[in-house]
């Protein structure tokens, strides 16, 4: 079975680096799934959830706040602005952060930098989503 050599890097660290079977990423045009032998592709990514199927068939979810994907014949690289593995995110705190960001949007209209706040909301939303998907995966498994 062929695999993809996959890497997610952010300016802070290498979030993920391993062989995977497939991955699903949110691009500007919608979600796409990349399987081995995909043709070279460059796309910009929007905030959302990356789903990665590992070689042991486990699903890994990663929250993404935007970036780029580069698909090469034998390698896939995601240059992310920020990325966090769902397993590392504390859901309660992610939800809190999201609400805080939304509150910022409604309050004090004139002082806030709108695009920055919007980006923050999108990012936090992605984190919350990632955690939920991650958790749901567990429930299905235990059933």
């Amino acid at each position, binding site marked *: 079975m062929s695999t993809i050599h996959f890497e997610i890097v952010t*300016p802070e660290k290498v979030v993920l680096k391993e062989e995977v079977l497939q991955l699903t990423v949110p691009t500007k045009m919608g979600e796409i799934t990349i399987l081995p032998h995909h*043709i070279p592709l*460059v796309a910009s990514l929007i905030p959302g959830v990356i789903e990665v199927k590992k070689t042991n068939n486990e699903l890994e979810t990663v929250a993404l706040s935007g970036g780029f994907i580069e698909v090469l014949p034998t390698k896939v690289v995601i*240059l992310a602005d920020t990325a966090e593995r769902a397993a590392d995110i504390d859901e309660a705190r992610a939800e809190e952060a999201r609400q805080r960001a939304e509150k910022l949007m409604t309050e004090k209209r004139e002082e806030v930098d709108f695009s920055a706040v919007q980006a923050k909301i999108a990012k936090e939303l992605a984190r919350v989503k990632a955690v939920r998907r991650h958790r749901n995966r567990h429930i299905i498994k235990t059933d």
Partner: protein
Amino acid sequence: MASTRDITRRIKSVKNTKKVTKAMELVSAAKMRKAVEAVLKTRSYANLSWLTVINLAKIAQKDNGLHELLNQRREVKKIGIILITSNRGLCGGFNANIINKAVNDPALTPGDPAVLRDGAGLSLLRGGEKPEVEFVILGKKGAAAHRRFGFNLAAEFAKPDVVTQVAEVLPVAKMIIKDYLAGKYDKIMLAYTDFVSTIKQAPRVKQLLPINLSEADERLGTVGKGDEAGKAKEIIAQKQEKYFAGQEYIFEPNPREVLNEMIPRLLEIQMFQALLESNASEHSARMVAMRNASDAADDMVDDLTLYYNKARQANITREIAEVVGGAQALQR
């Protein structure tokens, strides 16, 4: 021989100096730890993103309409150099090294054989005239490029001592990219200091724009690679052969939209990484310089103490001799 009082005074002053250098060493060490950590964190991102840029530039060679920033350029009439130095001195040869490296760069002196190897330099050589050079400096000490070597300064940006966010290089990056696209500069170089280790830093001048594809360019892709520069080249060559057999990319949604967003961002990352490298290098250079100063002060104190003891002993001997001489004179 100096009097014992003079020597004690000197010992005291050297000891005080040592206290200062020791304190500066400790401060630099703390800053260095932070800076090094930051540098190491972003290295893989910066390297991978630069590889992406190179791949894209390779494609652009065939298809010139892809993006303006990827195109190989025309004649080089004016070069812009971004020079990253420190804000403060007392860091050994750090600033002198990078400034010398920048002003002596082969790209600035036509006729040098090194220029021949440089793809973009070829046209410059044929023209036979010296390209105009302008410096954009980050860090106060860079002004020496103007004072000592008489180069024009296009702009001076304040350099933060501790850099954490890409946003801090945005003003520089925006300006440079705008000027390049507007045709003000035909070539952009980035002069910074690669952080190799605490005791070794390598000043380096890297061509940022147009993206350099020529084999002979050792600067290519070495941001953050330090000693592994050779290895990086291999990896790039390998990657180009193995991973990328001259195939076309698909761009989603379309090339223009993706590249408009992507290329400036990746260039910013390069500048950011260069700034981080320089900062880490600066703090390590300062720490080492201050440690050397403290050690030298220690040696000096030792030497002076020896002199002091000798002088003291000589004094005592002389006094005894005087007393004895006096006593003998009285006996007679």
